């Protein structure tokens, strides 16, 4: 009974703890800077700007009429091509260090073709020799013209059984591989990219999602009626919404079709890098895969995870994605680590309402906003340069120099995860394992820490092998002595007991 009482008291006490304890710990921090990043725990922290907005260019600043719902940008050398879909034209803009000047407006082509005027084009690609490939969506064709806008060829809907006969051919995004093969993304097509040979013949689809088997769905279907089953969403493969072909002919593409729960768990792959077989080969070594924001709340009409609208990849294998939901830009290194995130929605310089495209010339970024119909130009800051220099030097194998740059980054942002890991990696290369471990531990980089620890452990064992052996030998030597002592004590105890018994008997 006493036990029961105590037990009940303990139970009540514990239950009272439930009532008194605060249930949650607030962990959201307000970020007041333009640029931010995430730490190991997925918490945002402030960062110095890696990119700052330089200029805001509308149609009238270029000396022409304002743009209407522009959809795409393309950059070749120092020329920027803005596809002004609403006005059925393409603006060719020369970009120099400070300013942007309009070179020509492309509204019409010349040559042996029926329709010469562009009709709401959605995308453009400019080849190295100046040839233009235009996704002339309103005319249901892809135009290939030379640099003087003389007609070379056009690609229309392929006559192929794999292409749905009922739908119009409305190319929305296109890019061209180095060999001249055209990769096209068309409206209402969800089998992946359409590829066309250099002469315009149709090759086939590429990069479609593999349909995966889901056991939960199977169970659900097993226990549902036919009508319910018909209502259920069928397996819809990915619809991509943009493509970018980098210098090595890999296709960066983005998709907005994924489950929010997958994104929260870090399993969504909104950004992909496809090789020529259509396999996703993007490296995802960060805490979270490249997917824009790691966490989000639903406020002010902006719901769900980031929806990537466009990607651009720089020659140093860093790439930038733009989120059309919250108007943010995300920079990634080739390992898939988030370098920095910046931007937002609004009407100030450096903020967007509906970003539709991103491009780069040199290290400058150009972001096209469909609603404000303007191009925002970003310039890399000193801080951004340091990060990129550090990454570049590491790629080159100059680990010391890379480490020096990371040190400079740390001077400006003591929270910068990659800097700690970068310094750690260069220390690892210099065989300073213990120091490297310290750096990796700060940012909880398990993989690199394990590597450093393995070497350090090996070194330690080799250095102290003598002591270890001596210790084991001593232990082996001491063991019998202990046993002997135990035996003696036991015998003494027996003797004592025996004597006591004898004494008792004698009493």
């Amino acid at each position, binding site marked *: 009974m006493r036990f029961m009482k105590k037990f009940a008291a303990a139970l009540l006490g*514990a239950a009272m*703890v439930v009532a008194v*304890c605060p249930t949650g710990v607030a962990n959201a921090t307000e970020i007041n800077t333009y640029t931010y990043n995430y730490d190991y725990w997925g918490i945002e922290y402030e960062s110095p700007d890696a990119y700052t907005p330089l200029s805001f260019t509308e149609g009238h600043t270029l000396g022409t009429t304002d743009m209407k719902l522009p959809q795409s940008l393309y950059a070749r050398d120092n020329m920027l091509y803005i596809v002004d879909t609403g006005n059925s034209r393409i603006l060719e803009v020369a970009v120099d260090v400070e300013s942007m000047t309009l070179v020509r407006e492309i509204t019409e082509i010349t040559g042996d073709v029926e329709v010469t005027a562009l009709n709401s084009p959605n995308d453009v690609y400019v080849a190295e020799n100046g040839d233009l490939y235009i996704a002339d969506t309103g005319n249901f064709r892809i135009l290939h013209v030379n640099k003087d806008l003389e007609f070379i060829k056009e690609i229309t809907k392929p006559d192929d059984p794999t292409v749905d006969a009922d739908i119009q051919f409305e190319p929305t995004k296109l890019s061209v591989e180095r060999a001249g093969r055209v990769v096209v993304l068309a409206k209402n097509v969800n089998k992946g990219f359409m590829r066309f040979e250099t002469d315009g013949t149709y090759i086939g689809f590429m990069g479609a999602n593999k349909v995966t088997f889901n056991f939960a769905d199977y169970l659900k279907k097993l226990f549902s009626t036919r009508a319910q089953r018909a209502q259920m969403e069928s397996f819809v493969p990915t619809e991509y919404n943009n493509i970018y072909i980098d210098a090595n002919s890999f296709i960066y593409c983005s998709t907005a079709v994924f489950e929010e729960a997958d994104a929260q768990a870090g399993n969504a792959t909104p950004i992909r890098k496809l090789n020529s077989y259509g396999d996703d080969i993007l490296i995802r070594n960060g805490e979270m895969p490249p997917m824009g924001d790691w966490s989000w709340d639903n406020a002010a009409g902006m719901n769900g995870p980031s929806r990537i609208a466009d990607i651009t990849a720089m020659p140093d294998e860093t790439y930038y994605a733009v989120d059309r939901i919250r108007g943010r830009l995300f920079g990634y290194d080739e390992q898939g680590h988030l370098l920095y995130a910046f931007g937002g929605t609004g009407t100030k310089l450096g903020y967007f309402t509906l970003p539709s495209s991103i491009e780069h010339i040199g290290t400058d970024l150009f972001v096209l906003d469909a609603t404000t119909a303007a191009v925002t130009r970003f310039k890399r800051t000193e801080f951004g340069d340091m990060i990129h220099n550090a990454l570049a030097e590491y790629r080159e194998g100059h680990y010391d120099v890379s480490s020096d740059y990371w040190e400079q980054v740390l001077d400006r942002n003591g929270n910068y995860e990659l800097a700690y890991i970068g310094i750690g990696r260069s220390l690892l290369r210099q065989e300073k394992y213990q120091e490297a471990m310290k750096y990796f531990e700060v940012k909880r980089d398990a993989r690199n820490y394990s590597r450093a620890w393995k070497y350090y452990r090996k070194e330690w064992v080799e250095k102290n092998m003598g002591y270890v052996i001596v210790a084991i030998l001593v232990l082996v030597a001491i063991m019998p002595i202990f046993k002997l002592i135990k035996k003696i004590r036991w015998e003494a105890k027996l003797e004592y007991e025996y004597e006591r018994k004898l004494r008792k008997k004698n009493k």
Partner: protein
Amino acid sequence: MSMSANLEKRINKQTFERYLSSLRYSMYVITHPFDGMWDLTHEKRGSIAAGNTILLLFFLTNLWNMRFEKFLFNRVRWERVNIWQQILGTLFPLLIYCVANWCLTTLFDGKGRLKDIYLGMCYSLTPYILLINPCTIISNFVTKDEGDFLAYFESLALVWCGALILVSVMQIHDYSLMKAIMAIIFSIVGMMIIVFLLLLFFSLISDAVAFFISIYKEILFRVY
């Protein structure tokens, strides 16, 4: 005077030795569960003191694991750990299990008393202490890849503990295997009911308290 002091000392020593032997008995229980669990209560080989010790060690094992396991295998933010929440998360469910199991088994001719159930549960936790603590220590000497086997040991500990609890229900209440399994399942249902009732109780109490506080404030406001 000195005789009685001596006697007291001897008794204490005997109690302590009894405590130690009942604690040592947990080793026998985890290796010979059927035999051990029977003798634990029916032959009075176990003691509440030893049970309490094992429960405390179980709680500490969890804490030590959170604190001292290498960060390679451990995603705990130590600065965010709340000791009360830890108590709630580990000890509270176990204690509620005892109560729920007792409530259920007294209705279905279980032989065990609450004390016996508590003892059986405490002794069943021994493998957890024996396996997790070495894992915590070893985790500091291995790389991430080598640490995969730690996960196996952790699941082994849980399976072992679960099996022991099952056997403890069988032996303490003199149940068949099926009946023991059913008893455990319905104990879990009972636990949920208890938690629900506790929450209800405390929310009502806090409402009542809030009511009297507001009356007090109202009076203060009106009178002065």
